[in-house]
């Protein structure tokens, strides 16, 4: 039921924008009477972590980067990749190793400085030098990792003239175009401003926070508010009808809805700061308020993961992280399967996500439903709830109860995680007779424990960066990640699976055979029960009836250029 309405709204949104084709703005036509005050207001729970494209990491912060900066390419509202700073799609050589970009001649920063190929080279070099979360978006270039390790220039990147960029890749990378469209690490920055204001300080003041995007920041009070306005005569086209965007910081989800109801906000949901599940339920059940609620397909999977090298669920107890964990006599397999089958995901989604509105039960593997690599609605054989089989399997695996003595489930307290955790605990107790202790913590502590491989059973979650399975496998399930510890907290290492995904990474994602390869790899994951996937997140939005052009495409909010407020 929820599913069909979600698809309907997404389809409508996509259809509408198919007409407008990308650049937002003015789609409403002359039949709309616009309000005099075109200020768009919304609120957030926490302050942003970083506004620097080279440092940014969270989906919340990316929302703003999307509007203030530009990359060579970008996603339009229907997630189609279109040129932005580049004038056209890239020329790729036959062997896939040389990419040539022709740049637009009219790109300028909001302070008037012109953008040339030198700026792009400088910006990308800076990103690699700072080597933070999304520097990986540029690692496909030959010599990029050298810069991360201290080299001064990217040997594989050159600027033959002021409006051409040439990149040499180490190996064909079908996904690189997608990475370039992400509004983060590869966006162009103004060297003059950053050098003057300081690499660490240029984002603090609105006056030095300069980008080439359709909007610019005019005010920022830490932990209180932010303000943006459109850039006059923006080189990229129409910046739309909004005259100002005001963001309140420090308003929690309950208060956001209250302010929305008293007319203080145009929307709740922008920048990944949506309403809480109880309010969503209230709106769903109210005939009038229901019209203001839209639930979009989300791009996040939540699961619980098992430790493959330590503890009762380990497939190869005692192995060092990064070593092969495949084991035909896997001693933890039955336990992992039992724990997964013991969970009625429908009940969990009902309870933790307000009757399955803010999330949907997951039956198709780690990759979120609706994205490439999804295993299908019955793709995960151990996601199907079967209490009797689970209990029997559990008792066969652990007849004395010694294996689960003192078992802890670790998670970070945020959003609906607490609800999920408490329901998991209740279901394991009820269906397996096992007492799992809940150990909530903040995120840094959880991360530390995961890296130390102390977490035996813990919450896992991944928000999609772009619609490509490589995002999942390379970050979460590969042997090299198990060693390094930036992802793959389970320390799962399956060389056969890695071989399949590495080969697929080099091929074009538009080829169905490539997608099939990823699906095969995904099936190995679910058979080994690396993650017991429990739900796919949805994004509920509350929007005032007089707002047009608001939406969400599964990864990002619709661009601000398309939003307008009608008279009300």
């Amino acid at each position, binding site marked *: 039921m929820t599913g069909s309405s979600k698809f309907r709204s997404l389809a409508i949104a996509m259809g509408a924008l198919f007409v407008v084709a990308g650049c937002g703005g003015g789609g409403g036509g002359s039949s709309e009477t616009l309000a005099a005050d075109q200020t768009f207001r919304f609120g957030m729970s926490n302050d942003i972590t970083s506004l620097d494209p080279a440092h940014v990491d969270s989906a919340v912060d990316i929302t703003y980067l999307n509007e203030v900066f530009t990359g060579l390419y970008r996603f339009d509202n229907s997630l189609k990749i279109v040129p932005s700073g580049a004038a056209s799609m890239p020329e790729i050589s036959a062997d896939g190793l040389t990419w040539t970009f022709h740049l637009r001649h009219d790109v300028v920063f909001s302070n008037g400085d012109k953008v040339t190929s030198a700026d792009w080279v400088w910006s990308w070099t800076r990103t690699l030098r700072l080597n933070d979360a999304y520097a990986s978006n540029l690692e496909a270039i030959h010599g990029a990792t050298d810069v991360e390790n201290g080299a001064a220039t990217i040997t594989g990147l050159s600027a033959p003239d002021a409006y051409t960029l040439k990149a040499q890749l180490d190996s064909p990378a079908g996904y690189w175009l997608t990475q370039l469209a992400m509004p983060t690490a590869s966006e162009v920055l103004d060297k003059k401003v950053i050098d003057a204001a300081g690499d660490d300080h240029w984002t603090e003041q609105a006056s030095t926070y300069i980008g080439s995007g359709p909007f610019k920041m005019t005010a920022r009070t830490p932990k209180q508010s932010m303000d943006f306005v459109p850039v006059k005569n923006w080189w990229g086209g129409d910046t739309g009808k909004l005259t100002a965007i005001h963001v309140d910081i420090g308003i929690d989800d*309950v208060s956001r809805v209250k302010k929305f109801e008293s007319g203080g906000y145009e929307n709740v949901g922008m920048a990944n700061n949506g309403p*809480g599940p*109880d*309010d969503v*339920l*209230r709106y769903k*059940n109210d005939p009038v308020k229901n019209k203001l609620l839209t639930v979009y397909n989300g791009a996040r999977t939540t699961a619980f993961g098992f430790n493959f090298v330590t503890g009762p669920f380990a497939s190869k107890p005692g192995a060092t992280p990064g070593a092969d964990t495949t084991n035909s006599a896997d001693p933890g397999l039955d336990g992992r399967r039992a724990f997964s089958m013991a969970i009625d995901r429908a*009940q969990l989604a*009902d*309870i933790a996500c307000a*009757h399955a509105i803010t999330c949907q039960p997951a039956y198709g593997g780690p990759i979120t439903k609706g994205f490439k690599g999804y295993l299908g609605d019955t793709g995960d054989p151990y996601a199907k709830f079967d209490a009797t089989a689970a209990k029997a399997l559990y008792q066969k695996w652990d007849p004395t109860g010694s294996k689960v003595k003192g078992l802890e489930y670790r998670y970070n*307290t945020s959003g609906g995680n*607490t*609800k999920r*955790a*408490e*329901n998991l*605990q*209740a*279901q394991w*107790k*009820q269906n397996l007779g096992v007492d799992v202790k*809940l150990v*909530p913590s903040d995120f840094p502590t959880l991360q530390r424990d995961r890296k130390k491989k102390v977490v035996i059973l813990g919450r896992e979650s991944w928000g999609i960066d772009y619609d490509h399975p490589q995002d999942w496998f390379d970050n979460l399930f590969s042997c090299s990640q198990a060693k390094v510890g930036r992802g793959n907290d389970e320390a799962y290492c399956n060389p056969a699976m890695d071989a399949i995904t590495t080969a697929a990474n080099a091929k074009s994602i538009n080829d169905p055979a490539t997608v099939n390869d990823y699906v095969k790899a995904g099936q190995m994951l679910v058979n080994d029960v690396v993650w017991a996937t429990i739900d796919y997140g949805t994004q509920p939005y509350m929007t005032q009836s007089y707002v047009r052009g608001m939406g969400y495409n599964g990864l990002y909010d619709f661009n601000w250029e398309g939003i307008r407020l009608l008279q009300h």
Partner: protein
Amino acid sequence: MATVVPTALELPDQLQVVGAAEELPEQVTLWQDAWRRLKRNRLAVIGLVIIGVFLTTALVSFVWTPYPTWRQALGPTYQGPTLIHPLGLDDYGRDILSRVMGGAAIALSVGVGASMLASAIGIILGLLAGFYRGKIDVLISLLINISYGVPDLLIALILVVLIGRGIQNIILAISITAWLGMARLVRGQTLALREREFVEAARSIGTKNRKILTRHILPNALGPIVVQATYLVPAAIIFEAFLSLLGLGVPPPAPSWGAMASEGYKAIQIAPHIVLMPCLALSLTVLAFNWVGDGLRDAIDPRMRR
């Protein structure tokens, strides 16, 4: 704790030292007299009854509740009161009546536990500071003065974050912030009492200091101590509720009233019963303890003896 303790005791001129010139015979009849007066105080009696009810509920909950307090999906979530679930179901589909019962156990454990621990520490240190003076007194007075400069909630918050969230840790954290108030009271009492004649008398016949403290000073200071300790219980219960509200109270699925209230608040417009029940239970318990505390204070106040 200087937060919600009703403050007759904070007024220096109302701090009466209990006990007159004679000692032991007076003391026995004093307590009997106090008990008689307490019984006549209607509100205090009601308070005692309420506490009795909650105490019984708490004890029963250790052995039996209508449904397990942790069991979810017993019915449709957010459901209002029905015959089989007289207080309704919460947002997880858990039985609220069972959880309120469990919450009584937690509240009373935290309240009484913290009060007793804080009192024990406070009494010992207060006696030592007031009697022996010297370095101990300087240190304790300094601590008391510094404690005026920092809100206890902040210290407790930091402590809980550092040492973890179990029920014992919370009792510990609350006690660490609460013992200073008791120490201050006991120190004041001791300072006044040590000058009294019966103490001089005891000293002159060679009674050891420890005996003087335990046999002479402490019993005479007991009145205000008991009153303060009684007031500490509801203060500790509210304190834990504050912590739960901020997400740092007794960890889930423990049915502490504060945690239930903070969860229920989010659903207050679709299911007000979820937040109402624990708030009601909490307020009644605190009210009861406050009435009893007031009654005790009036009962031992010699100025009201007629």
